[in-house]
């Protein structure tokens, strides 16, 4: 290849700013070569450098005695006792999934799985957060079919069960759907592997698929808005190969069982560039790589392309010298090619050679420490004050409550996600105690009594109306979900999906959301151990609502003492615990039925919420409640109906009797963050009320389980009654309306 003349013009085309251009010269003491330009561009992209988010991310709490690995590695790790630990992380694959939903989603799952098994953990559970445009938007069915099949096929093929997640529809995602993939793995706390290039002279190995022209500039693409031009970037789409990933997973775990692997890292965004530089940076070492040794899928890749290729299913690792035979024999067993491509040096520089010529030579500290950091201007978006105003007197209350309830619960926003999660293997590896139908995913840890619970939550509408409160509420809700399964929340991973950070309004949303997450995570003692930021979720200037997805992980000491949300038998008392009064501000009802994203979202008292969480854990641990379900989007009646709709048992109804004093729509569909429906034996109900009172949690009886109908009255006066079977039909078939 002829040396490409590097000019500022070229650099600018590649998204390098004048200040960055100057910085590059200062760092190198000369003009960059073309491959070097590519390296800076990728490493300083928003996606890799976190230049707009870093100073704000630093404010998040990341420590607790049980945190074994916080942010900065491929995944975070927490200690769950008896020497066991769990590694988990969430990552977005938003832009690729919009361009090619099937492959984009599939490779997203592949990437997050690699992040977890590189730590030495066996992946045992997945969650997925999917956000699509309006149900009736013409692209929604296409995107949904592709994304769900992509997420499913990849995880199914690898054999990691999908335990839950979220599917949200809102017009703000019309031009940018979101795919957030979460993986959790289990490992021994003293067998953690990190992405470090240690020990001068040790070989650097490359293993997995060959390198092709896939996704070159993927990292930069994820850092840019969509426009007409993006169409041209289409050939960069990566294709997932779950079979190869499965081999890679098994081979890596096998090799990590020995002592000769010192550091390992997957090649994710910005491929070989970011993985090699990050490994050297973490170890404070240098690294020399011969690009001519990289296995190629096409012969004619140039150094620039090799450095930036984002071909999937590839790993980089550093091993002690002298174990070549052992290493090769493991990879041969798994039908994988492993090659030595370089070595660890003491130069603190990254050197890349090609055909006997040095093509790039960069001081590693220069990339890491000198990476640009921005404190971008922020200002509250103007539309907010108007959006927060809500005049209920202009909104008609329910006229035919039974019919309106049925319509609401059968809408795409509230209906069963069965169409989605039956496409996911939920029970492979025989650990699944609670899968997608439940409050939280829950797996048992074989050989112990422990269970690990996990939940993924965020309500973008609340985050739009009040990003601070919305982000705190996402943490609060996911923690309450985990607690309702009977587990103690211990740690958080996040996916921070936002619009263009160069817009002050978006930056304000981001800062506010960080403040809310910080408050909630501090109060609930759930440090943030890993995560990911996805900016520029905008198309033609229109951005998404701020969507900080929260992945919460918790520990149940004894899986025989957990709960599910479903009513268990006739004659149990239905109790409502917590902030019993909901409000319509920011509610799903207003949004989905009235087309209004308006009002002040429900308040969140974090101290109160924490008491409620602790109460739930002790009620379930003491076996006082038979079922527990938190009341979230949609409000009280949908939550109660869901408790009647167990997939595996016969219809079990309930008669609900509520107190007057609110409009019907508010009483039925108003939302509040800290609210749980439980059922208890008539004998235990008193105990539950007492425990609640002792914890300072409001509690009241609102009905009885039994029969085949869902009947709702107010002070004894019947408002409506529906057959459970009728509710089930509309609820289970809601998604079909979108796909038809």
């Amino acid at each position, binding site marked *: 290849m002829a040396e490409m003349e590097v000019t500022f013009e070229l650099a600018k085309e590649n998204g390098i700013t004048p200040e960055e251009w100057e910085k590059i010269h200062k760092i190198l003491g000369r003009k960059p070569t073309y491959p070097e330009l590519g390296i800076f561009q990728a490493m300083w992209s928003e996606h890799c450098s976190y230049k707009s988010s870093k100073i704000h991310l630093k404010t998040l709490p990341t420590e607790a005695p049980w945190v074994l690995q916080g942010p900065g590695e491929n995944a975070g790790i927490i200690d769950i006792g008896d020497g066991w630990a769990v590694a988990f992380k969430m990552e977005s694959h938003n832009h690729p999934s919009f361009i090619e939903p099937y492959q984009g989603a599939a490779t997203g799952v592949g990437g997050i799985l690699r992040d977890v098994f590189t730590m030495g953990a066996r992946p045992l559970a997945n969650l997925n957060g999917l956000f699509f445009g309006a149900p009736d938007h013409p692209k929604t069915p296409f995107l949904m079919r592709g994304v769900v*099949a992509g997420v499913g096929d990849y995880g*199914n*093929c690898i054999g990691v069960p999908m335990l839950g997640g979220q599917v949200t529809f809102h017009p703000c995602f019309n031009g940018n759907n979101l795919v957030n993939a979460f993986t959790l793995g289990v490992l021994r706390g003293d067998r953690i592997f990190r992405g470090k290039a240690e020990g001068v002279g040790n070989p650097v190995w490359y293993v997995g698929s060959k390198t092709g022209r896939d996704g070159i500039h993927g990292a930069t693409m994820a850092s840019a808005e969509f426009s007409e031009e993006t169409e041209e970037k289409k050939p960069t789409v990566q294709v997932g190969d779950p079979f190869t990933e*499965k081999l890679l997973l098994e081979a890596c775990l096998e090799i990590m069982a020995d002592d000769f692997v010192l550091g390992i890292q997957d090649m994710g965004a910005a491929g070989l560039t970011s993985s090699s530089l990050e490994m050297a940076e973490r170890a404070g070492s240098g690294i020399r790589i011969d690009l001519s040794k990289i296995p190629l899928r096409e012969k004619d890749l140039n150094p620039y392309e090799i450095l930036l290729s984002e071909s999937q299913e590839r790993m980089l690792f550093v091993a002690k010298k002298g174990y070549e035979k052992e290493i090769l024999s493991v990879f041969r067993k798994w039908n994988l090619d492993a090659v030595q491509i370089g070595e660890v040096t003491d130069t603190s520089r990254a050197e890349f050679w090609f055909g006997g010529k040095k093509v790039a030579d960069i001081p590693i500290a220069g990339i890491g420490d000198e990476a640009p950091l921005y404190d971008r201007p922020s200002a509250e978006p103007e539309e907010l004050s108007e959006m927060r105003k809500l005049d209920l007197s202009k909104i008609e209350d329910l006229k035919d409550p039974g019919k309106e309830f049925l319509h609401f619960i059968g809408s795409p926003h509230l209906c069963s996600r069965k169409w989605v*999660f*039956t496409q996911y293997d939920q*029970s*492979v*590896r025989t650990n699944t*105690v609670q899968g997608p139908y439940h409050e939280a995913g829950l797996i048992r840890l074989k050989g112990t009594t422990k269970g690990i619970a996990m939940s993924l939550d965020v309500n973008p509408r609340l985050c739009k109306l009040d990003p601070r409160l919305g982000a705190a509420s996402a943490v609060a809700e996911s923690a309450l979900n985990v607690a309702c399964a009977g587990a103690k929340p211990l740690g958080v991973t996040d996916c921070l999906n936002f619009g263009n950070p160069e817009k002050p309004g978006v930056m304000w949303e981001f800062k506010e959301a960080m403040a809310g997450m910080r408050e909630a995570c501090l109060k609930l003692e759930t440090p943030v151990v890993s995560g990911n930021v996805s900016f520029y979720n905008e198309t033609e200037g229109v951005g998404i609502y701020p969507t900080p997805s929260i992945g919460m992980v918790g520990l149940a000491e004894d899986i025989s003492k957990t709960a599910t949300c479903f009513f268990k038998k006739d004659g149990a008392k239905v109790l409502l615990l917590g902030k019993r009064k909901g409000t319509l501000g920011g509610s799903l009802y207003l949004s989905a039925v009235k087309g209004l994203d308006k009002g002040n979202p429900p308040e969140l008292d974090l101290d109160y919420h924490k008491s409620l969480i602790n109460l739930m854990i002790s009620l379930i641990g003491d076996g006082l409640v038979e079922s527990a379900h938190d009341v979230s989007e949609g409000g009280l009646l949908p939550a109660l109906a869901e408790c009647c709709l167990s997939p595996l048992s016969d219809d079990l109804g309930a008669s609900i009797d509520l107190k007057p004093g609110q409009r019907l729509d508010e009483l039925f569909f108003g939302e509040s963050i800290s609210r749980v429906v439980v059922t208890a034996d008539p004998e235990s109900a008193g105990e539950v009320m007492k425990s609640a009172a002792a914890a300072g949690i409001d509690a009241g009886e609102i009905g009885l389980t039994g029969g085949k109908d869902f009947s709702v009255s107010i002070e004894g006066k019947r408002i409506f009654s529906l057959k459970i079977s009728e509710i089930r039909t509309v609820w289970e078939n809601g998604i079909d309306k979108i796909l038809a």
Partner: protein
Amino acid sequence: MRVTVVQFLGSNCDHDVIQWSKDIFRMPTEVVWYTESDLRKPDLVLLPGGFSYGDYLRPGAMASRTPAIESVIDFAKSGGLVLGICNGFQILCECGLLPGALLRNSSLHFICRDLYLKAGNKKTPFTNKIPDGKLLRVPIAHGDGNYFCDEETAKALESEGRVAFRYVSPEGKIDPEWNPNGSMSGIAGILSEKKNVLGMMPHPERASDKALGCEDGRLIFESVISHLES
């Protein structure tokens, strides 16, 4: 009873069936790699489920052309008991030990859900412990479980009592609503002529532990134990 589990590249339920045999039923369990020909003298061979070779080309196709499978064929021909679950069933059809083929699910989707199975013949090595009238609740998890064979074979399967399991409604009726994948007359599992080879799409190993909610799948393993003891 000695059990051998064959592991293929990409299998992902290998671990689950090993645990089924070894931890739940405490049977001596050998794991044989696909390149090996020596099955180590088993009484029962288990072919696990889960995407050998990524299900590329056709599910089970590549796994069925391996040295281990050649030995499994010999073992089965001499009357040995072989149970293939999910991908294991697909491998058994691909290698010719069982007739017919498993096509794409009629919905074209992968499907994972609990279903009800009715045994078609209680006098086989794999079904003898299933009580009369008992339906087994067992999950499926597959994209290609739509059983197909020619008419002649179908007749033979029926008349020779070789339909091991059918998908049925909770009331035990054959019902298209409860046939998840479009399989011919609701077939979920079939037996070889001598009834020593069983292939089934549902996963009994996932329904054999109280901690996970259901133990119906145990009956299949228990049947094998009782068959070998008698």
